[in-house]
């Protein structure tokens, strides 16, 4: 990873923007909160002070999950795009999110106490993401065309959501409500106590990502060239699916499905940095992905008093036209 002058300048701008937007995000909720309560909420928490409770229970978890979900999904998308040599790949379109949704639906509606708990949901989500990741990986050996693989991903998604709707019709109102809330996608369901487990999995994802930088750089040349450069392509693909499942699974468990971030952001990052060096691209995906999701959530918070926009709806409204633009640019 060699940063040229331009990359350094872009990163400096991104590093300056992040705390700025994080600050705006913290203060843009419906209720005005003084600065000192933010400080107290973290270091001298007093659970009788309403402002501090709001900060600790709502604002901070929401901000942290926005950063992790935006950055994590973008990095997962980058992995999928390089691994399948397909600029339109991403965890959502390839059905990896759908795997999470399906398994979460099973566990929430199973009525089994462990499975309906937080830890149960996370485990199911991780497992679902991994299984669907392996399915799409197996299909990638059978189909040659980029479009076919995307179609298979979309079909997997359709298949999963069909089963989910059958499960929904079978479930009782309480479970149905819990699952429907989850499936709308939201950054607001995370609690302060969840943050440690989210951070734990994100750190695993982040650290293991460092070790796939070099294989990813080689995979840009395609599988056969990567092999002649001494890369164990089979293991690398498995590692990439596992990391993607961890990132997507944990994020989906807490936020529900979030579309288009993983597809659009890596493309945007490549346009901005104009490089195939995956160390730079990953860092870029983390910053731009989290800035993107934070900005989306700021918009949602600002209009919250009059209209409730699910995060998934907003990322799709912005992401879908961008992806169409990419398709047009490639075909033109």
């Amino acid at each position, binding site marked *: *990873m*060699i940063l040229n002058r331009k990359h350094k300048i872009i990163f400096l701008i991104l590093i300056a923007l992040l705390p700025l937007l994080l600050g705006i995000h913290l203060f843009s909720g419906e209720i005005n909160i003084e600065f000192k309560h933010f400080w107290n909420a973290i270091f001298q928490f007093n659970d009788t002070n309403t402002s501090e409770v709001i900060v600790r229970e709502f604002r901070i978890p929401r901000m942290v999950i926005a950063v992790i979900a935006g950055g994590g999904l973008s990095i997962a998308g980058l992995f999928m795009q390089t691994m399948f040599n397909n600029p339109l790949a991403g965890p959502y379109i390839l059905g990896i999110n759908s795997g999470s949704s399906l398994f979460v639906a099973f566990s929430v509606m199973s009525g089994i106490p462990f499975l309906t708990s937080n830890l149960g949901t996370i485990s199911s989500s991780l497992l679902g993401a991994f299984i669907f990741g392996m399915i799409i990986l197996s299909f990638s050996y059978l189909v040659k065309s980029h479009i076919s693989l995307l179609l298979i991903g979309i079909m997997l998604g359709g298949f999963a959501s069909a089963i989910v709707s059958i499960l929904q019709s079978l479930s009782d109102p309480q479970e149905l409500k819990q699952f429907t809330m989850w499936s709308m996608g939201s950054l607001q369901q995370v609690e302060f106590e969840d943050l440690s487990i989210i951070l734990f999995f994100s750190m695993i994802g982040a650290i293991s990502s*460092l*070790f796939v*930088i*070099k294989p990813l*750089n*080689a995979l*840009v*040349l395609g599988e*056969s*060239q990567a*092999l*002649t*450069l*001494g*890369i*164990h392509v089979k293991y690398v693909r498995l590692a990439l699916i596992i990391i993607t499942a961890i990132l997507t699974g944990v994020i989906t468990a807490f936020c529900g499905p979030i579309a288009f971030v993983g597809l659009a952001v890596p493309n945007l990052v*490549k346009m901005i*940095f*104009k*490089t*195939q*060096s995956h*160390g730079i691209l990953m860092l870029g995906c983390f910053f731009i992905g989290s800035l993107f999701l934070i900005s989306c959530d700021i918009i949602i918070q600002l209009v919250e008093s009059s209209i409730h926009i699910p995060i998934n709806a907003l990322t799709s409204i912005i992401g879908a036209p961008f992806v169409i633009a990419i398709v047009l640019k490639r075909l033109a």
Partner: protein
Amino acid sequence: MIEIKQVKIGYKKCLFSIEEIHLERGKVYSLIGANGAGKTTFLQTIQGNIPAIQGLIKVDDKNILEIDRYTKSTLIAFVNSKFDGIEYLKVKDYVGLGRIPYTNALGRLSLLDMEIVNKSIHQLNIEKLADLNTTELSDGERQLTAIARAICQETAIIILDEPTAFLDYANRKIVMEEMKKIASSLNLCIIISTHDLELCLESETEILIINKSTKKMQVFPKNQLLKSELVEIGF
């Protein structure tokens, strides 16, 4: 460098056999044979990607099938018949990917690596392309860039699978001349599969030919065969 003795080449069924051939450093070998004669299978077999049906292939005195992937990547480099260029990948960075076997876990190029990248680029006289994107090059320039990447891998053997198939006459000539220069200046063993009989005769390379009637591979030193004889043996 490459030692092939009593070997049968093929994928499931035997395509042709080799009694004894030694491929040496400092030479360019043109691999000639009819379509389906087994050129690609041969190239895959000497890289150890598919096993020989019978017999042993030794590279640097070691059985190729027992050489681990990492060591192999420091021994043999491979150039495809076509490199389409990759978006946002500059020539310099592309050539730098040849250093992957030598870099640390994060893939960072050291100063020494950078120097080797520059040397490889210089070797093929493509300095003026170094900062261009690989998608902005002509077919000929892209093929030279791909060869620079293979040189950057610093292997003793470079295998090229029909590198001139998509090039015009001038560029084919340039590629062959460059390969000859490199083989002697860097003392490499270079194997090029090709359909271009005139070109390999003109460039005076050694000839590896799959005999159509005996189903055996034969090796001829340069300037020994005429085109009519090549056609007679191989087609």
